[in-house]
């Protein structure tokens, strides 16, 4: 890592000329004649082997969860993030947001050096100059006695840094910093504190029988997504004994779509339902308030009663009464005796400790507006975007005497600052985090800084040491040494701890000055209007922090399947009444402001409600975020609940039809299966029944042979044609006798739809592993005429040209008359769909040049450098999983290049980057298969069962995907393929797929009444 530190060769220059394994930017079509340089090391580093990955354990800082991640480092630069299997929080899983940190690291629009305001614009300066200005300004502020009014807004994190920061601030005579996390479910935390005494008790889905979710979107963006999803999937995998989920809320989120029943309660009526459950009100009153049938409420009350201590009630609301409601929901748990069973305050998660309340932020804003703040610091916090416009942050911030940003991306807030001292990305930094109390995870740099940035800790120490009055308080030269000095056992123990990623112990505590502002009574005028509006954080972009990462922009929203866009969800019935069709603009006007976005008719919102996601509408934040969508924070009033948290919910709005129309940037074709049996399901009760229920679907056809995995199967025999017959004469590698024994394997995959939640982490994992280009950025469109380019965000996706090798299909069942009636009873089924690696692949024989063929180990191979691009294979693929390079996404000299410098640093050198005119598709991560085979061979052994897996399976936070050798019974996949729930998609087409789906398991609605 640090071999040439101080050598004078800039790391990136060094990497540019490192020719040894320079296959990174390999583009199909390069000739072998291009001979470059072969640059060896000056001195070989001790433990690296060029071209072989090393894994550095670190901790993800993208959200408060604190998942352990492994940074896969190749030749000095990270190329991928994976979940750390040893880490107690995420146990190897990782979400899309976490993996996308790579694109924050290599973002081409990051600050490349310090910036200083000169006139209207920020211009680059050297660090010396920047630090000089900082010292000078700090001196000025202190000499005028204004230090006590300084404001430091730091992106919320756990670990040592908050404590360090407060030490520094106190040395400067400044008040403690505000730890800002606009994505934290603040009301839930407040009510948890009130009810359980901890911010975040652990949730045991497995011990539950009935889960009530009051808009607690534990699979979207609420709480600690990855561990929650792991536990949820494990709980649901109990099949018959799985917990049932009732989702109560005006909009059916991803969590809602995973629920067994949706009770579409009117916004603001949740308390009434809680009252009914707790016996404090009648079912009739609750039903009236919530606008649902009384029978449903009655059944719900009965179901809760029946479940006893196995009830798990969660509240994720953000209405003005959210804290009260959350407290009542906790009372449901308490009165059922499930505290300690399903919800365990004793095993608290520490990620949300120390977050400043919204009121703190409002107070700081008010002080800024009053002009009483002489200096303000921000670090990776963006209130100018991620705060209600009504709060007036940007205007207030402008009145601060001197504004310093430590953010590493030019966002709306840092663009307002006078001095930018770009912090290192966390992948370039030292640090730690605390997810579970008493367990520290470490953050260690995986590469030298990409740009001329410095760690904020180092900068603060340098600044302090430059000030004679306080220099003595900072004995260590940098933040790392400061951390070690505070680490029990010193440097040796620290180094050991790094290799394990976690260590027991607690970091230096911060001064704990949260909620310093005196409580104010809850204020929020819901406003008036004909509709409710639900403003919710996007599951992919959060409330805006993810918008600069093209993977997250390109990842279709798990519910609506819309990318690179803002949209307004409206019930089809309401849309019909308003005469609005998909894509026609709707203007939502609340007391605070208005936004206009295209309509998306969605049967999962109440007809009197519209919903809009946060996250878009950036005016800064880089090329991928700008000019995309609208900022829904414009709708929010500056209201808060009784604990001082921002109240976003239960807004009233006037919704009117706009004039314009924008096609939706959606990957959705038809959301209905048309009886084709792609996503199959069965009732839980049928699992132990003697005969497996066969779902009727209607592709007529004759299945000549049933699927059996492995070599016993006609899959292999058919795939390998006449050569499976050992009696045939030598037929090369398809011969079982061939010395390579390639034919003895059959790579296969099972996907358990009972586990899959549709979260789409697999999609991003695949992008990361396989160098899949994102195609939706505003510069990537096609020419609309010889002179004009299509610069709409997602223009290529509007044309259906997304490249995701694996996609999450979301099919609805039931409720076909949505335009004329509202019914909450519909089911969503999620199917990850990728190349099925058919034994009898229809794509193969149509290729004129053998660019796709069947390998002896059962892969459907795509050879990019042989492909001429007839696209016949795609036409003939019933699963439609082949993707075509319409433009030179992989060619740096083309406009549509998907990895503008330095994003190409994250390209996986093991995977060829495809040039234009070439077909590509899921390879079952053949590079990982080869890597495993090579490793086994080097160690002179056979592959071990489950030795490696594909990128999608690695990431999957539901553990729904299992990959392996179906011909070897030691692999898990070989067992799962025999499961009673196993089926093949379109098996009537005799494709003999290598991907086996396990049917989703449905449960009867828990609160269904006989009369309902």
């Amino acid at each position, binding site marked *: 890592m640090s071999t040439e530190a101080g050598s004078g060769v800039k790391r990136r220059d060094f990497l540019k000329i490192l020719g040894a394994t320079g296959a990174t930017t390999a583009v199909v079509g390069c000739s072998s004649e291009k001979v470059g340089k072969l640059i060896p090391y000056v001195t070989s580093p001790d433990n690296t082997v060029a071209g072989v990955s090393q894994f550095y354990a670190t901790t993800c800082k993208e959200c408060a969860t604190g998942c352990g991640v492994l940074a896969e480092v190749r030749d000095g630069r990270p190329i991928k993030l994976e979940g750390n299997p040893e880490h107690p929080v995420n146990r190897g899983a990782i979400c899309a947001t976490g993996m996308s940190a790579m694109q924050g690291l290599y973002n081409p629009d990051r600050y490349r050096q310090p910036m200083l305001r000169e006139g209207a614009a920020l211009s680059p300066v050297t660090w010396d100059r920047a630090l000089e200005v900082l010292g000078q300004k700090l001196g000025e502020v202190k000499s005028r006695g204004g230090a006590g009014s300084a404001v430091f807004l730091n992106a919320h994190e756990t670990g040592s840094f908050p404590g360090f920061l407060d030490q520094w601030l106190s040395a400067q005579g400044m008040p403690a910093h505000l730890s800002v996390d606009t994505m934290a479910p603040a009301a839930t935390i407040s009510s948890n504190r009130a009810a359980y005494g901890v911010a975040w008790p652990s949730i045991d889905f497995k011990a539950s029988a009935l889960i009530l979710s009051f808009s607690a979107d534990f699979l979207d963006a609420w709480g600690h997504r990855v561990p929650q999803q792991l536990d949820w999937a494990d709980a649901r995998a109990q099949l018959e004994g799985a917990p049932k989920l009732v989702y109560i809320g005006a909009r059916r989120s991803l969590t809602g779509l995973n629920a067994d029943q949706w009770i579409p309660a009117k916004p603001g009526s949740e308390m009434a339902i809680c009252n009914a459950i707790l016996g404090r009100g009648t079912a009739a009153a609750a039903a009236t308030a919530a606008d649902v049938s009384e029978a449903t409420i009655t059944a719900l009350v009965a179901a809760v009663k029946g479940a006893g201590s196995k009830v798990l009630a969660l509240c994720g609301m953000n209405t003005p009464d959210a804290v009260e409601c959350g407290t009542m929901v906790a009372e449901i748990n308490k009165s059922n005796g499930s505290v300690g069973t399903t919800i365990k305050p004793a095993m608290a998660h520490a990620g949300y400790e120390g977050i400043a309340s919204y009121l703190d932020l409002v107070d700081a804003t008010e002080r800024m507006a009053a002009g009483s703040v002489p200096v303000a610091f921000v670090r990776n916090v963006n209130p100018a975007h991620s705060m209600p416009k009504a709060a007036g942050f940007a205007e207030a911030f402008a009145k601060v005497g001197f504004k310093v940003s430590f953010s590493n991306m030019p966002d709306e807030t840092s663009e307002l600052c006078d001095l930018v001292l770009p912090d290192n990305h966390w992948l370039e930094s030292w640090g730690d985090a605390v997810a579970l109390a008493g367990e520290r995870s470490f953050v260690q740099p995986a590469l030298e800084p990409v740009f001329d940035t410095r760690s904020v800790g180092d900068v603060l120490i340098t600044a302090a040491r430059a000030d004679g009055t306080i220099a003595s308080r900072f004995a260590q030269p940098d933040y790392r040494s400061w951390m070690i000095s505070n680490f029990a056992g010193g440097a040796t123990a620290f180094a050991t701890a790094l290799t394990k990623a976690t260590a027991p112990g607690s970091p230096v505590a911060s001064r704990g000055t949260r909620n310093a502002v005196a409580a104010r009574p809850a204020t929020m005028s819901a406003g008036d209007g004909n509709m409710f509006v639900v403003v919710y954080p996007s599951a992919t972009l959060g409330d805006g922090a993810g918008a600069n990462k093209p993977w997250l922009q390109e990842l279709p929203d798990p519910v609506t399947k819309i990318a690179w866009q803002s949209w307004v969800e409206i019930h089809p019935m309401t849309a019909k009444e308003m005469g609005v069709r998909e894509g026609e603009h709707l203007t939502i006007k609340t007391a605070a402001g208005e936004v206009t976005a295209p309509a998306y008719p969605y049967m999962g919102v109440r007809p009197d409600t519209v919903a809009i996601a946060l996250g878009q509408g950036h005016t800064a934040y880089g090329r991928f975020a700008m000019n995309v969508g609208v900022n829904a924070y414009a709708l929010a009033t500056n209201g808060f609940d009784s604990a001082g948290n921002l109240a976003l919910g239960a807004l009233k709005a006037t919704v009117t039809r706009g004039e314009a129309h924008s096609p939706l940037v959606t990957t959705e074709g038809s959301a209905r299966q048309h009886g084709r049996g792609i996503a199959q399901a069965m009732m839980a009760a049928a699992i132990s029944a003697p005969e497996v229920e066969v779902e009727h679907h209607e592709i007529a056809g004759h299945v000549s042979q049933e699927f059996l995995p492995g070599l016993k199967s006609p899959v292999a025999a058919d795939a390998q*044609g006449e050569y499976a017959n050992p009696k045939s004469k030598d037929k090369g590698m*398809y011969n079982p006798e061939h010395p390579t024994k390639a034919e003895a394997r059959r790579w296969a995959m099972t996907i358990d739809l009972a586990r899959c939640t549709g979260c789409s982490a697999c999609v991003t994992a695949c992008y990361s592993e396989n160098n899949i280009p994102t195609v939706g950025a505003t510069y990537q469109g096609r020419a609309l005429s010889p002179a004009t380019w299509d610069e709409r965000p997602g223009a290529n996706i509007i044309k259906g040209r997304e490249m995701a090798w694996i996609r999450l299909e979301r099919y609805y069942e039931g409720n076909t008359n949505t335009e004329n009636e509202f019914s909450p009873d519909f089911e969503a089924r999620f199917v990850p769909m990728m190349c099925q690696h058919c034994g009898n692949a229809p794509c193969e024989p149509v290729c004129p040049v053998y660019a796709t063929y069947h390998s002896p180990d059962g892969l459907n191979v795509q050879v990019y450098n042989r492909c001429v691009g007839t696209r016949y294979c795609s036409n003939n693929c019933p699963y439609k999983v082949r993707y075509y390079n319409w433009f030179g996404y992989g060619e740096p000299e083309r406009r549509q290049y998907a990895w503008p410098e330095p994003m190409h640093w994250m390209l996986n050198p093991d995977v060829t980057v495809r040039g234009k005119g070439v077909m590509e598709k899921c390879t079952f991560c053949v590079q990982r298969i080869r890597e495993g085979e090579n490793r086994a061979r080097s160690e002179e052994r056979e592959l071990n069962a489950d030795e490696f897996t594909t990128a999608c399976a690695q990431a999957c936070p539901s553990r729904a995907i299992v990959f392996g050798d179906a011909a070897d019974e030691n692999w898990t996949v070989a067992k799962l393929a025999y499961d009673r729930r196993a089926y093949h998609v379109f098996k009537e087409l005799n494709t003999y797929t290598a991907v086996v789906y396990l049917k989703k398991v449905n449960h009867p609605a828990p609160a269904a009444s006989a009369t309902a």
Partner: protein
Amino acid sequence: MQGVLGAFHHLDTTVHAIEELKKARLGDVTVYSPTIRHEIDEAIDAPNSVVRRFTLIGGLLGVSFGYWISIWTGDYWPLVTGGKAIASWIPYTIIGFEVMVLVGCLSTVAGMFINARIPRLTTTVGYDPRFSGGHFGIFVSCGADKAPQVEALLQKHGADEVRREA
């Protein structure tokens, strides 16, 4: 090539002249006509063209090459596609057929060229441009000794013009 050339404007006279020349055995007779007339064919009564053998051989060669190239290349580097047999003779029939037609046709043309002695570099000897227009022509290849005899015969049958070719 020496001989006598006669140009005729009428089909029937040409035919009579040919018949008489054949009987007289004065030398090899070449008949020119602007188009194909079966009357002339019958008068000449030439053996059947051997072009058909070229066609047959070319066709057979082609069909074997078509099957061979598709089977050999498949077997040379066996890659299974879609679970189909490496040597799938049914689809290869298409290749066999197309190559049969291709080679068959080209060898037919070659056969015609060889047998009709084209391309030839000159048309001057024993030819007159009128023969591609409205006139029929008869060229008798003979020495100077028989030439007057031939001339007389041609003129008797009403040739528009008779001339000696050297």
